[in-house]
């Protein structure tokens, strides 16, 4: 019974990681860049939540605002920073993403505060649903359900719309996609918008639980998202989702099963497990195939 509870808990946590990882994978697909600025969408969302909630807005409106703000911020970051290094060596793009990450942090430190600011969390996230001997958190169920709906929507968008097909084509072979008439500006902007939307949904649940805004609020979610994308196999969208769920499950199971005196080592153990995974599967859980036959 305890295990079922932990699995639901892990899937709840993993859902957020999956959404973050999917956003990172989408950007990696079209730009071949691990976007270390992805966490800044959470930071911006956190301050949006703080300002709106302390101004008396209800969480439902705030949730909507977070998603919109994250999507717009993502497109703005692409326009302001990444557009200018498009086609540059991978290292340049990587440095640019770090630059955006540190710049956004610094702007919040300079113009808002270096300290964390608390905002009210919705009451319902602490409710539980008792089924026999199992106590399920409503929050976990809400995260899992929302994530599944979001992933289904994203799947339909990517599989059944020309935008989705264009995005996947650009992710597989950017030059060939360009030759087919796919506009690079449009597809990259679309990728950042989609990535921002996914980060926004993740941010809603992350912030509901954390209840605080600070300049480094996005650091932890960014790291989890990047790790999940790496575990799944960079370049694979389904891998990113799988990586997110796997990371969430492993974290929760470790926290629950490790002896109390070593539970603080959870993150370290997770990294060791990831290192071991890469020893045996350097490409991550899912291998991206480009089969060429004669």
């Amino acid at each position, binding site marked *: 019974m305890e295990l079922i509870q932990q699995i639901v808990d892990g899937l709840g946590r993993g859902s957020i990681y999956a959404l973050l990882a999917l956003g990172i994978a989408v950007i990696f697909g079209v730009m071949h860049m691990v976007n270390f600025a992805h966490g800044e969408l959470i930071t911006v969302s956190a301050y949006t939540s703080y300002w709106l909630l302390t101004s008396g807005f209800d969480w439902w409106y705030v949730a909507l605002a977070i998603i919109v703000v994250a999507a717009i911020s993502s497109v703005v970051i692409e326009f302001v920073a990444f557009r200018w290094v498009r086609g540059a060596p991978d290292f340049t793009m990587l440095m640019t993403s770090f630059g955006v990450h540190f710049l956004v942090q610094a702007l919040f430190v300079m113009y808002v505060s270096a300290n964390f600011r608390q905002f009210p969390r919705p009451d319902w996230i602490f409710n539980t649903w008792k089924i026999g001997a199992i106590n399920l958190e409503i929050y976990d169920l809400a995260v899992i359900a929302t994530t599944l709906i979001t992933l289904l929507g994203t799947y339909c968008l990517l599989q059944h719309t*020309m935008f989705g*097909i*264009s995005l*996947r*084509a650009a992710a*597989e*072979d950017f*030059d*060939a*996609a*360009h*030759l*087919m*008439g*796919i*506009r*690079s500006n449009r597809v990259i902007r679309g990728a950042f918008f989609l990535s921002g939307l996914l980060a926004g949904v993740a941010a809603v649940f992350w912030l509901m639980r954390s209840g605080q805004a600070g300049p480094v609020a996005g650091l932890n979610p960014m790291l989890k998202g990047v790790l999940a994308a790496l575990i799944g196999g960079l370049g694979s969208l389904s891998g990113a989702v799988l990586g997110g769920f796997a990371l969430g499950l492993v974290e929760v199971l470790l926290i629950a099963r490790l002896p109390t005196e070593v539970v603080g080592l959870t993150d370290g153990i997770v990294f060791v497990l990831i290192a071991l995974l890469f020893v045996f599967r350097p490409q991550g859980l899912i291998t*991206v*195939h*480009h*089969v*060429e*036959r*004669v």
Partner: protein
Amino acid sequence: MDSGLLNVENLNTRYGSIRAIRRVGLTVKAGEIVCLIGPNGAGKTTLLGTVAGLLNPVQGQVVFNNVDITGWSPDRVLRAGLSLVPEHRRIFGNFTVRENLLVGGVTLSQDQRENLLEEMLDLFPVLKDKLSVSAGFLSGGEAQQLAIGRALMSNPKMLLMDEPSLGLAPVLVDVVFELISKLRDSGRTLLVVEQNAQRILNVADRAYVMRSGQVVAEGSASELSGSEDLFKTYLGGSGVAA
């Protein structure tokens, strides 16, 4: 300037410090099949890449359908009506055959796309039964047909083909040349880069011979295919076209 559908004048393109093509000029008239032949490293692919917008020329002009398209991006060149079947096909291996064809028609309306899809399946019946098959699992010949079909899905005024027989087994090479003949018979305009000079000269109307980044000979395909000197001097062979 000559009144061809495609006119290339005095084109120069660099790869870093190397000038890959120098003062190249050529003309392709509507309804013609023109081929570019020459040894490896002659600059044929660079020339196609420059025309298609993949490379920027340092000098010269590319005029297509009376519009100067020099330096345009590949998506803009395609919208102007010039579609490239790239070297090694570059089909999307993780896509189904249907999705590959649909990507080719991304610039069109949904109705136009569906109509052209039907046309392509009539032109390439081998693809009909494989619409939901992952393109990565096609044979080389099927993949080449898919690459050509995908390029035709944009309903181009002219098709550029880069080494369509490259890397194919001999039996599949026959399929590709039959396909080019089929396209010729349907009145399409083609500029084809091909290593297999003898085979392409059999189906082309005119040819340009390139060497070391320059056009060194040009003429009708029948005239060039009968020239033993041409094969000896520029193409490293002694035979004439069969």
